[in-house]
């Protein structure tokens, strides 16, 4: 949508000074070459004004990452924030370009941009910018880790699935009650004496496994199907990706 072009000049001794724009759509011109910045990481910026030219000194932890790479302009049209990943690979000779990271073709550039946005990009961070107090930053980081955890819940035999937010509950019992309420309409005729299925009751679990009643299972981060109730609640919430209330007869293998 909006293009930002910034002019920078590269000094002769590249190892001393490297120029980079900070803004999105990072195009910049080295007469007569066009460079395109793709990824960078862990760079601290110092804005250094010499008498002739605008320069930026970058001190990086990893020398490799400061290489500038030749690329076509306009390849990074997506709007990106200041701390976007930019990979500086000084690649003046085309045959040196590693095949997986060639930036001479527009398509590859955008591919790389896409993959770089898929995984969390290494961020270039100016110390203290944006100016947000560390207290607030910590709260945001903590909150990001604590967002709602909606997982799908399927019950064998039910015509449709439900979704439940695991963050709403503090114990297995609460979850059990909620699931019981949710699926009670499907289990009329199969309820225990209390009128509600009690999934998590240990002693009942054994009865259930041998009967045609239901057993709660979940798929964890590794893709394995586990029996609900073994690990502490917080660990469960952190690792549960979906719930499946299996028919007892099928669940025998999990015991």
């Amino acid at each position, binding site marked *: 949508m909006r293009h*930002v072009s910034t002019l920078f000049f590269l000094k002769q001794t590249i190892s001393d000074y490297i120029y980079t724009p900070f803004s*999105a759509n990072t195009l910049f011109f080295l007469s007569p070459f066009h460079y395109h910045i793709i990824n960078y990481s862990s760079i601290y910026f110092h804005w250094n004004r010499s008498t002739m030219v605008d320069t930026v000194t970058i001190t990086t932890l990893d020398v490799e990452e400061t290489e500038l790479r030749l690329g076509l302009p306009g390849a990074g049209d997506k709007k990106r924030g200041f701390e976007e990943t930019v990979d500086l690979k000084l690649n003046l000779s085309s045959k040196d370009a590693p095949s997986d990271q060639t930036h001479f073709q527009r398509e590859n550039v955008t591919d790389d941009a896409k993959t770089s946005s898929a995984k969390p990009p290494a961020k270039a961070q100016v110390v203290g910018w944006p100016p947000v*107090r560390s207290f*607030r930053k910590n709260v*945001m980081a903590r909150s*990001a880790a604590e967002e709602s955890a909606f997982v799908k819940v399927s019950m064998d035999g039910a015509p449709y699935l439900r979704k439940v937010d695991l*963050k709403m509950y503090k114990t297995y019992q609460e979850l059990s009650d909620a699931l019981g309420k949710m699926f009670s309409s499907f289990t009329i005729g199969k309820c225990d004496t209390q009128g509600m299925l009690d999934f998590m009751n240990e002693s009942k679990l054994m009865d259930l496994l041998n009967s045609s009643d239901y057993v709660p299972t979940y798929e964890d981060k590794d893709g394995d199907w586990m029996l609900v109730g073994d690990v502490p609640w917080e660990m469960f919430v952190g690792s549960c990706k979906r719930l499946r209330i299996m028919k007892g007869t099928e669940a025998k293998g999990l015991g």
Partner: protein
Amino acid sequence: MCLSQSVMNYFPEEVLEHVFDFVTSHRDRNAVSLVCKSWYNVEKFSREKVFIGNCYAVNPERLIARFPRLRSLSLKGKPHFADFNLMPHDWGGHVYPWIEAMSKSRINLEELRLKRMVVSDESLELLAKSFPNFKSLVLVTCEGYTTDGLAAIASNCKFLRELDLQENEVDDRKGHWLSCFPESCTSLVSLNFSCLKGEVNVAALERLVARCRNLRSLRLNHAVPLEVLQKILVHAPQLNDLGTGSFTHDPNSETYVKLKNAMKNCHSIRSFSGFLDVNGRCLPAVYPICASLTALNLSYAPGIFSNELAKLIRHCKKIERLWILDTIGDKGLGVVANTCKELQELRVFPSDPYGVGNAAVTEEGLVAISAGCPKLNSILYFCQQMTNAALITVAKNCPNFIRFRLCTLNPIVPDAATNQPLDEGFGAIVQSCKGLTRLSVSGLLTDQVFLYIGMYAERLEMLSIAFAGDSDKGMLYVLNGCKKLKKLEIRDSPFGNMALLSDMGKYETMRSLWMSSCQVTLGACKTLAEKMPRLNVEIISENEGGAGEGEASLDDRDRVEKMYLYRTLVGPRTDAPDFVRTL
């Protein structure tokens, strides 16, 4: 002249003192004390509230000698940029010497307000034991203590009315401190522990709230669940200011229904904050109080989606102060503009400071607010992009800004539409807003913006500059033009020795100057320090450990990484750590 003088002297001191009681602002009282010796003395002994903007400008002994009957002290320690990790830890700002001195002199201290200071458990213990009438402790962005210190305050301050901890870094030793309030304590009016990270004894909290019938302000922390909030509200429907802790629960549960009813009963709540952990579906419980809210802080609640926020805000027609995250989006700000006609202060914080984020708010949101909220006078706005046209429009719509702080997430982003620097936009702001006292600029900026600031910002007291300007001229425009400048903080800008040394006397009219990653050299700083003995010029080195080495290798021609200078009556400070060198 003779006649009026004798008329003045006719008034006995008690009358003068009574008259001075009505003079409350610090500046006015300072002015009063300059009139004549007798007024100086009367004012000196009747002054109860003292504000010290830089704790190193003066020392405890001088304070006590000057105002022996002081009852309320406000102190500020580290400079503003210390909030953003630009100041090494342990730079200073310790409150202990102040408390110790006041304790020894038997000052009848009742209130202590600290900002950006280091507070140790020892200081809190000494505070609690030394001042029998101590009533109010407010700590803003402080650090260095644990909940043991809080326990000391709770146990010993029999008449404690206010304990307000805002955004402090506290080492949590697990919530026993709340139980330290004795059963006889019923005087609490304000309690804010929202920044504490650990569990608190909720039973003790409930009992405390129940017996403090005068409690008006209560801000809970993250660890206090919704069930407890509900019970507290039943005990304290008289609250004016409420900060919730955790606000997530099953909206179908009985607890939630009880909470809704309790909220309906709270007719006095005018200020609301918290939602430290929130489930958007629980928000409707809050709707009944929204209509009378004047202050709302949702800036710690990234979990609320934009549409839920908008729904909530539509209920808040009387809001005067709104702190929010940029998850609200431009559209949400449009809702604010349409609904909140009484809005005076708006702060929009970034929800994802380092993210490769989607454009959360842009210049459109700001323009909408300026158009819809005629009373707007204070803004802090973190945005993805900005344009000159938008700023010019905002300046036209809102000539009443007192504080204008704009922060683009990319510090040198140009005008999003024209690619030009944002000089003209900020120029319009300073030209239009004659009452502007605080300004933060960002985005691509040249010396031109400083020309405008120097020309038009006559009332400006605090200016924050980052990654801006082309040459010394920029800084010179500001120093020459802004007569009322008190605090100037600059980072990563090409200002150097010429600007620093051009008007050295200016710095004695200011509280402080911060320059980091600029072009000033050690030699220039030394020159300044030599010529101006009433300034402390501190050179702060990067590494906290090896400063000795670093210093030796620093030549007069070398650039100084961090310089902090401030006026002072008491010379170089005695508690400076190794990495701080006062020239």
